[in-house]
């Protein structure tokens, strides 16, 4: 029967029905258990922030995407966070400042961002991530990448790559060039899109030395496997970039120890997060999926904006992207519905209720079919609502039949076997 009441949802947000929601649940739980195994403890930030406070930790890009409105009680602007990292930075810098460093924190929650409409982009983003605050040095950076790899393996991703960049390497090339802000922005845009020919054209007219030109032109091509580190050494001479390469090499050494280097690719021309990050940056890509599923990196300046300067690094997964990319794998891992629907046609329901309680205490998931109907209707319901088995306790309360919903395979089970805990499906 069609619903005649209009119930549209704003674009860019979604509801998840049980089958999909179970997969989301699986992703959250699996990631959380990886975080826990590396010693990370959960924090749960507030859903609303004072806009002025939140903006301390947001770059221009995210500021423009923030949902904001006014607080009737105070007249101040409040906002739904577009990213959880600034919130964690605020919590660490204010609420936790007297605790000993480092902090290993993880979180899980939804954020909102304005996006272009009609392009299939989400406004609601479900983030799950970690922040490691108070640690400098390559081992901390390597920890983030190794964890991201372990997370992807844990949720069942097969072919994937963690693509690493180094913001300081880029700064070494870009800082100190005699460019005005507009020129500098167009040069950065060309590098970001790896537009070599556009960059060539731009550089022709700019007042640069041959050395500066050749370094800039090298950037869009410095991506691939580990071999590009040597290429970068040869083509880029400035000390800041060389120091950044030293840092990268140390990180890669640790990653080899963790045994994750086969998943690493490098992109030294990656400009993403150039304004916000301060060292190693990375993104995770699954083979066959067009967008990054996770992103992270070092952001040493962020907690300082909340009055507590500390080195920090972290990453976050986009759970909707993971859900979409791994749908088939998650079907196997989280697709199973409830174990039993317990159907009992007799007048006395007490034995069925007791049986359900026994099965639950043994760890099974059981729902009672409370509606009065015949067995065929009960089986039909069980099939459509993703129950694995229909368990029928007949009117005599003595005969127990187990029907598998997928193929109708039927077996009888002795009630005593369940009571004694010997029953297994």
């Amino acid at each position, binding site marked *: 029967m069609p619903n005649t009441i209009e119930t549209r949802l704003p674009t860019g947000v979604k509801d998840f029905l049980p089958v999909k929601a179970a997969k989301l649940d699986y992703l959250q739980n699996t990631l959380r258990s990886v975080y826990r195994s590396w010693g990370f403890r959960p924090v749960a930030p507030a859903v609303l922030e004072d806009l002025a406070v939140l903006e301390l930790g947001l770059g221009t890009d995210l500021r423009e995407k923030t949902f904001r409105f006014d607080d009737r009680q105070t007249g101040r602007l409040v906002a739904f966070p577009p990213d959880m990292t600034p919130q964690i930075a605020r919590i660490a810098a204010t609420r936790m400042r007297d605790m000993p460093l480092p902090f290993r924190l993880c979180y899980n929650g939804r954020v909102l961002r304005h996006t272009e409409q009609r*392009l*299939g982009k989400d406004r609601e983003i479900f983030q799950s991530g970690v922040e490691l605050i108070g640690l400098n040095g390559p081992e901390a950076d390597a920890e983030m990448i190794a964890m991201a790899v372990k997370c992807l393996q844990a949720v069942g991703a097969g*072919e*994937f*790559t963690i*693509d690493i960049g180094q913001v300081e390497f880029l700064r070494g090339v870009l800082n100190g060039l005699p460019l005005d802000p507009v020129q500098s922005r167009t040069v950065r845009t060309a590098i970001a*899109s*790896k*537009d*070599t*020919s*556009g960059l060539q054209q731009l550089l022709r007219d700019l007042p640069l030395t041959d050395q500066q030109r050749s370094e800039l032109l090298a950037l*869009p091509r410095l*991506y*691939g*496997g580990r071999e590009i580190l040597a290429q970068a050494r040869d083509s880029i001479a400035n000390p800041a970039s060389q120091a950044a390469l030293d840092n990268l090499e140390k990180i890669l050494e640790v990653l080899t120890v963790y045994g994750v280097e086969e998943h690493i*690719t490098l*992109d030294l021309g990656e400009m993403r997060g150039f304004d916000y990050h301060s060292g190693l940056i990375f*993104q995770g*890509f*699954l*083979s*066959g*999926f*067009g*967008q*990054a599923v996770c992103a992270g990196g070092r952001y040493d300046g962020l907690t300082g904006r909340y009055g507590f300067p500390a080195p920090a690094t972290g990453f976050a997964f986009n759970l909707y992207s993971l859900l979409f990319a791994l749908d088939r794998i998650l079907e196997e891992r989280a697709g199973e519905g409830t174990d039993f629907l317990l159907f009992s046609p007799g007048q006395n329901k007490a034995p069925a209720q007791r049986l359900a309680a026994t099965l639950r205490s043994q760890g099974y998931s059981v729902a009672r079919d409370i509606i009065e109907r015949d067995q065929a209707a009960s089986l039909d319901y069980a099939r459509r609502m993703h129950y694995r088995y229909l368990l029928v306790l007949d009117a005599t309360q003595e005969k127990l039949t187990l029907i598998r919903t997928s193929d109708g395979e039927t077996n009888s089970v002795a009630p005593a076997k369940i009571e004694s805990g010997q029953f297994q499906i």
Partner: protein
Amino acid sequence: MSDYLTFALPKGRIMQDSMDLFARIGITCPEMDDPGRKLVFENRADKLRFMAVRSQDVPTYVEHGCADIGVVGKDTLLEQDKDLYEPLDLQFGYCRLVVAEPKELRQEDDPAGWSNIRVATKYPNVTEKYFAAKGVQVEVIKLYGSIELAPLVGLAERIVDLVSTGGTMRENGLVEVETIAEITSRLIINRASLKTKHRRIIRLIEDLEQIIEHGPRISG
């Protein structure tokens, strides 16, 4: 699926030019010789797939990762501002994006004195950005085709459009005032594809670069 390399190509001339270019580096698709009404063509032996789409849709398919690689005019890229890599200028499909106006208006007109103007175009974003940078207020009228008609019937005094030979504009009594950008076809690549299929894609880019450097520049 993911071991295939998928191309999104604009239907028509550019698709043909692209396939001619790709053939020179050994990328072919015999299935395309007899296209019929099909939109997807496969070369199973080499694990290649080609999709024929509207040129304005090429960046969308590539940005979402439905295609790893696309060929599209720089005009479309400028207009849409998508998150993509564009590592190679393929140097065909050459034309220019220009501001034009009727010949009679041009004789007494000084572009340096424009303060607010009305412009008809298929490229509203490029037009707005271009004039905003010059400090000129522009009222854009978005059209989908036959832009040259707009000044003739008084819809807008000026237009922003592509010209290759300039024939259509001349025949409609229009003259170019300024060039906004020189346009050629670009190779675009999905960000994730470049990372997850980097060996295949780097080779493709390098091979193409070789023949583009050595081949004659195609124009017109």
